[in-house]
């Protein structure tokens, strides 16, 4: 009976891809056997939307972490099980420095080398078309699509590009690009504006900008190179404020779980419009908008620090460890936990290669005298020294 069931799924897969043989057809018909309920089930399975929805669901469960957990459960030396009671005892005793002594090697060292790395992120995103279809885009994808309004979407290794149809469409068609943890994605909007979407971010935009407005919605972080057009200001809406520009390059960081919306300007001038007021920032300045109060502080910064991710680096200068890890975890896909409060506020400065695995920062943290890091599975546990 079970074998029959899996013969059936194979036949259904063949029908779904448009490659059904007479034998497949027979297997399906025999299974249905005039049963209306089963016939409906087969029709349901052939629905492309359902296929896409299912694909989307499987993405909720990335196998990477699970595989590490599996390896630990099957592998030799279950060191994480050993580590917990050890760490607890030491914490109770309040003698963290024991970890540093020679007699007791760091638990991390027991792990195999490959387990020590957090792999860097890569290029990829999920594109939601106006009709709700979801397309998964990765490095290998090469696609040509046409939206409902006739706009052609070209996808290749350099990102995604929207080309206007010959005739200007009447209706508004929206697309949404979402990057999961550990993914970034570049795209070119219909007006030629380049957008580099960082990890765990979402950009919603009209496939073709209507009339004399150019407006997009952002959650997360993105770097914009806006095509100059004095007649049509470009507006980014994020976390309660609107950033309005005429043509310039800037970075907006507006993650849902962060307190601030930070806009950093590389060149030109932008205008921030919030409920409490209006602020202007110029090149080399940064606007820190506090979501809770609606206030905004404009300060001079080294813009390179905040846009470094775009050029393949992470640069931090005297930043809180908690902020750094919160940021890095989106790209490298690890978890972290502060085992004591003081460790959150440790300030460090470092520069990392974004496309290399994250092992160096674990090293840095371990060799500095400021913090102590223990790795348990996919999680970093941080203690102040």
């Amino acid at each position, binding site marked *: 009976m*079970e*074998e029959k*069931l*899996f*013969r*059936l*799924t*194979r036949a*259904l*897969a*063949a029908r*779904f*891809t*448009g*490659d059904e*043989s007479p034998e497949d057809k027979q297997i399906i018909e025999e299974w249905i056997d005039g049963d209306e*309920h089963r016939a409906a*089930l087969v029709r349901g*399975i052939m629905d*492309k939307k*359902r*296929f896409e929805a*299912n*694909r989307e*669901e*499987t*993405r*909720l*469960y*990335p*196998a*990477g972490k*699970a*595989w590490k*957990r*599996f*390896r630990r*459960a*099957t592998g030799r030396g279950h060191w994480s099980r050993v580590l917990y009671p050890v760490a607890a005892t030491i914490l109770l005793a309040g003698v963290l420095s024991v970890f540093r002594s020679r007699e007791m090697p760091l638990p991390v060292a027991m792990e195999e080398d490959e387990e020590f790395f957090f792999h860097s992120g890569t290029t990829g995103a999920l594109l939601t078309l106006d009709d709700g279809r979801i397309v998964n885009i990765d490095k*290998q*994808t*090469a*696609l*040509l699509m*046409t939206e409902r309004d006739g706009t052609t979407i070209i996808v290749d290794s350099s990102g995604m590009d929207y080309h206007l149809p010959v005739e200007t469409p009447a209706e508004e068609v929206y697309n949404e690009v979402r990057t999961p943890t550990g993914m970034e994605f570049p795209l070119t909007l219909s007006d030629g504006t380049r957008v580099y979407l960082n990890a765990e971010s979402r950009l919603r935009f009209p496939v073709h900008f209507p009339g004399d407005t150019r407006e997009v919605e952002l959650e997360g972080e993105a770097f914009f190179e806006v095509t100059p057009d004095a007649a049509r200001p470009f507006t980014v809406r994020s976390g309660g404020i609107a950033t309005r520009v005429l043509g310039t390059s800037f970075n907006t960081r507006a993650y849902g779980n962060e307190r601030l919306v930070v806009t950093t300007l590389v060149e030109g001038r932008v205008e921030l419009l919030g409920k409490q007021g209006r602020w202007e920032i110029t090149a080399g300045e940064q606007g820190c908008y506090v979501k809770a109060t609606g206030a905004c502080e404009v300060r001079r910064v080294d813009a390179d620090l905040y846009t470094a991710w775009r050029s393949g680096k992470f640069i931090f200068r005297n930043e809180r460890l908690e902020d750094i890890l919160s940021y890095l975890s989106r790209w490298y896909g690890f978890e972290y936990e502060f085992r004591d409060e003081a460790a959150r506020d440790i300030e460090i400065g470092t520069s990392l290669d974004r496309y290399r695995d994250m092992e160096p920062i674990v090293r840095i943290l371990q060799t500095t005298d400021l913090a102590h890091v223990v790795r348990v599975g996919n999680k970093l546990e941080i203690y102040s020294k």
Partner: protein
Amino acid sequence: MNAFRGFFEKLYPVLCVFTSRYIKNREQCEDIAQEVLLLYWERRDRFDHLFQVKSFLFVSARNRSLNLIKREKVNRDFLRDSHVGSDDFYEGNVIEQDTYLLVRQAIEELPPRARTVIKLAMDGLTNPEIAREMNISAETVHTLKKTAYRKLRERLQDLYVIFLFSI
């Protein structure tokens, strides 16, 4: 072990989604998927065919899910009154998860251009429409489609019959 990794990475999300048809809590779904894969790993030498392995994984995930629901008092009536415990529900769930897994696997392994042709064909486009869309000749579409289908067919056969890991 590394040969098993590919299998694990394909089946783990599928088992999570399969389990989520019974259990709403995501972490519990992940735990169950993890458990049944471990269970399989411990007795992997007892299986000859892929369908036996899949069957084992799906049935184990289902049983664990139903047990979990039974343990939660609030859900007992739900289990009695709904059809989630029925064979029909199980079958429907397996059909959805496994068919889509096969489709994803088969398509992913096609070369890029063939993959685009198949995806467009799946969207209901005719050969001339695909040709226009991809800016290639209808003849090329025809050839790409033919090779793609041959590969899909081979791939689907493989998925069914052969089950060998070098462990």
